[in-house]
């Protein structure tokens, strides 16, 4: 047992090290969400909203981009990393060692969780310092649970997504083709009350909007703390379970060609 904990810890360390040294991964996961946050806040402005007790527009922008950052750190990051390692033969080689496979997969997800935590803290800090967006204390427990649940579920979805990606070259295209449209129907950039019905339905199906709304609820002082968004967590967990099932049944260790 002790040995497994040690192995898990050291594997998470190597995964984070490899992530830090991978310029593409760090750009998409860390830099891009920050650019989006700055960009959208300057486009849509950050004035005090009428009749909302000094609440600023960015109060709704920060959680949206935070949702994007969480999906980037988990689904996007894991899908790309897993495909690259699989096609390089690294996964198959690990499979040939005494390391229990679940430790390897668990370590990947844990590393994503760490990156998610760092990104969440960064986004909240930037919101506070640059845009005067304060996370109400009452919203903190809900936010922590939302981030934790989402990080685990979206990690499982990322690993599941790697199953249908045939090559390193296809990884960015397929991953973005999946997540980008979902962002647009999930209140990440814009709130979709006036969008066509079909897009609203799409937003209802995919899990990202539930993440965005759960985060918004923690940031909005009128809803922070109560009630906790159980229904939103439920949908996210449901998608996570789907991811776990796909991973358990179909995860590929060998390069696609072999």
């Amino acid at each position, binding site marked *: 047992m002790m040995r497994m904990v*040690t*192995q898990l810890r*050291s*594997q998470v360390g*190597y995964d984070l*090290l*490899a992530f830090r*040294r*991978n310029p593409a991964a760090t750009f998409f996961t860390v830099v891009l969400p920050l650019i989006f946050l700055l960009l959208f806040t300057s486009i849509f402005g950050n004035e005090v909203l009428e009749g909302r007790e000094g609440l600023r527009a960015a109060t709704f922008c920060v959680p949206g981009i935070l949702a994007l950052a969480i999906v980037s750190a988990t689904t996007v990051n894991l899908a790309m990393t897993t495909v690259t*390692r699989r096609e*390089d*033969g*690294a996964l*198959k*080689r*690990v*499979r*040939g*060692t*005494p*390391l*229990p496979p679940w430790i390897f997969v668990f370590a990947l997800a844990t590393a994503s969780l760490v990156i998610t935590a760092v990104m969440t803290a960064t986004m909240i800090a930037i919101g506070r310092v640059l845009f005067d967006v304060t996370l109400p204390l009452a919203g903190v427990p809900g936010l922590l649970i939302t981030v934790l649940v989402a990080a685990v579920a979206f990690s499982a979805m990322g690993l599941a997504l790697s199953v249908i990606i045939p090559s390193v070259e296809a990884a960015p295209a397929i991953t973005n083709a999946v997540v980008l449209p979902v962002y647009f129907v999930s209140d990440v950039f814009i709130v979709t009350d006036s969008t066509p019905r079909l897009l609203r339905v799409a937003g209802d199906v995919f899990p990202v909007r539930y993440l965005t709304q759960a985060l918004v609820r923690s940031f909005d002082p009128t809803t922070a703390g109560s009630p906790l968004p159980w229904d939103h967590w439920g949908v996210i967990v449901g998608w996570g379970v789907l991811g776990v099932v796909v991973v358990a049944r179909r995860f590929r*260790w*060998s*390069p696609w060609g*072999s």
Partner: protein
Amino acid sequence: MVPPAIVVEDLRKSYGRADVLRGVDLRVEQGEIVAFLGPNGAGKTTTIEILEGFRAASSGRVEVLGTNPYKAPRAWREDIGIVLQSSRPPRTLTVRELLDMHGSYYRSPRSTADVLASIGLVEEAGQRIGRLSGGQQRRVDLELALIGDPRLVFLDEPTTGFDPTARREAWGMIAGLRDHGCTVFLTTHYLDEAQYLADNIAVISSGRIIARGTTDELAVQIQVGTTVSWLAEPEVVTGELRALLAQAGAEVGFSARRVDVHVGDQESVARVLHELTGAALVGGWSLSDLRVHRPTLEETYLALIEADTDTVNGVTR
């Protein structure tokens, strides 16, 4: 008695309707280097992946270090080293980090310092893998399989794509494994590689072992025969000499100003030479540029594959 490292009996593997392995038998003793030789698509990689525990057999008995690899516990892998056909070590870690990481997967790994010394990358230890030359990267890749100090090492086409110098280096490393008491099972389609490294060679074609033994045994086994030839005009072979040679089991042919005497049976070579030298002395002609040619492994191998393919085609037709 030491139990064998690998025992395979009547191993079969089908994908849908395609029979990839059609009854393979193998036995590898401990400490042996065995080369598994065959053309592309013969079933080499399927076999080695079943032995490595990556694939399940459709039927047959497979035991590697006394265990069915597909159902083996993780601990079984402590004694197994695997070099994959095509794999690239992660480029962003340094050599030392990668070796440390792989060492952490085993209970009693070799020390990273030892490994660095043995692959001659002590000075490059702090460099990222991506900055190493292709040859150095492949050396790291080979060494990753050995970091757990395995008793049995699998190498799937270990030198494919190497330049001649890198191949020689890799051969040195593989041969060195035997000195450590390691058993080595390697697949290759390079004949010289099998010849240089292996104590025993098993040839696979169309999913069956068609020959097995040392280089010399293989040559005997398929009776490619020996050719005795010399420079001469056809007239020197009289009817009398032809009859004598036929009695010795030899057949006479002519090519490019040479007489070729094909001897099917190794045992008859001495008698054929005796008859020839006798006839030459009596007839007063010289056996100029006399050559006794035994088949190289390459010729043996090609003859084997050709013969097998003919049989298979004959059956299907």
